[in-house]
């Protein structure tokens, strides 16, 4: 799983850099070290994204449970509070 995230991120970074070169009407592979940098950053970014996604999912589950409890308390246990 981390492997695929890295690969996808690197591809994204490479694509972004090539696109950015194309925007300036340079040849696609001009400034190759920038492509390397972009690939590295993209890989890091994608991994962070995966991590963030997992964390968000976890937090979301927690909050959803909390919300459900709050709703149940509001609707069913009204007289106990």
């Amino acid at each position, binding site marked *: 799983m981390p492997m695929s995230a890295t690969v996808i991120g690197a591809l994204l970074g490479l694509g*972004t850099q090539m696109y*950015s070169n194309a*925007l300036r*009407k340079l040849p696609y592979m001009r400034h190759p070290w920038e492509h390397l940098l972009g690939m590295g950053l993209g890989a890091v970014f994608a991994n962070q*994204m995966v991590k963030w*996604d997992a964390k*968000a999912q976890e937090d*979301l589950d927690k909050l959803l449970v909390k*919300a459900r409890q709050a709703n149940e308390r509001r609707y069913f246990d009204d007289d106990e509070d």
Partner: protein
Amino acid sequence: MLTISLISLLIAVPLFSYRITPDLFNRITSLSLAFAGYLSGFFHVTNLSQGIEVFLLVVGSIILISWANFSINTSRYGSETPTISEYSLLIIFTTIGGSLLISSSDIVSMFLSIELQSFAVYVLATLYRNSESATAAGLKYFLLGGLSSSLILLGTALIYSNTGLTHFDSIYNLLSVEDIDSGVFRGVQLGIVLIGVGFLFKVAAAPFHNWAPDVYDGTVLGLSQYKIKRLLTYSTISHVGFLLLALSMNTQESVESFIFYLVQYTITNVNVFIVLLALGYIISNTPYDIEFIEQLKSQFGQNPFLSVSFAVCLFSIAGIPPLIGFFAKQIVLYSSMNENNASFIGYYFLSITAILVSVISAFYYLKIVQAMYFEKSTSFSEIRSSDGERSTIELSESTLYKATSVSNLHSVAIATLTIVIVLFIFQPIILLNSCHLLALSLFYY
């Protein structure tokens, strides 16, 4: 963090302005904004305000980093420098105001941070003081912003005079007392109405929007739809309508859709403007930006990738399906047609109106796209510039680099934003989950 960088910039600007170019100032500021975003600001109250603040800082950073350096060619255009080193200073001021405004929970701090934020923007609008349109726009913005600020101030004064409270929570608590004096309640209501009117003025929502096109464009009234920045302003007004539709419901879903809409619209709009800047640099080879849609004619042949990015942004703004803008519109409409709101027939009406309006406005975006792709450029300057471009291609590549003069970071920013807009559909869950999280944290924190 931001205050520290503000103070250090303040000291640095007069001291080193001969050794450091304005672009470098912009870059430094951009980095410090990004870093402040990474450190998540200085005033965190809730998850929601924190999240939006991070987003605000990152967007500010993108805007600054994409500011192209044009100092190469300035010698040809006299002493007029396109970038001014105080620019980044003002950006920091307005960002501080904005982030304080997000996290303010008291009437007084709300007002103070609004003032801080908008004063800096007035100055930003007037910054190119040699152009007549910029000064006119700045003056108009200042007067109308002053009007809306005084409306907000009157509203806060009414609330304070009727309750004696300034804290939002205390006002809420007081108003939820059952046997509240009806006179007090009406006074507070009036105050809130006035504050709302002032805010609507500030965000240029529909009944109070007349000033916005002038400020963005900086020209006199009368020219209708063929000035491109005016057109984008009108699109902003309609998008603010969407945002307000989402905001008016105050359910979990609508808050979520509001946040999502805000995020995507900000990304797309930033991209539109920086692509426009890049096109302006390339076409006219001056620091001046594009004014008329006519200037964009047949740009597809000359700058295919920039035109593609521009078209992608426009499609996203118009809400064409595979792009991010479509999902934002869809989620707003979905939350407004929710069964919880089914009893309010007004929301159906609003949704249908919103759909119709967005269809109509899509026409205008498509007109730009048509001009870019299918129309031949006619004006003389256009032909000359394209000839010049053709000749520069044959020259050595270093001169080509100067001729395009879109800086590296600028194009990277455009590329990244465009890719985000296009590829959102493949991994939507990250952004959607984040928005959902923020919305839920507002309700069940």
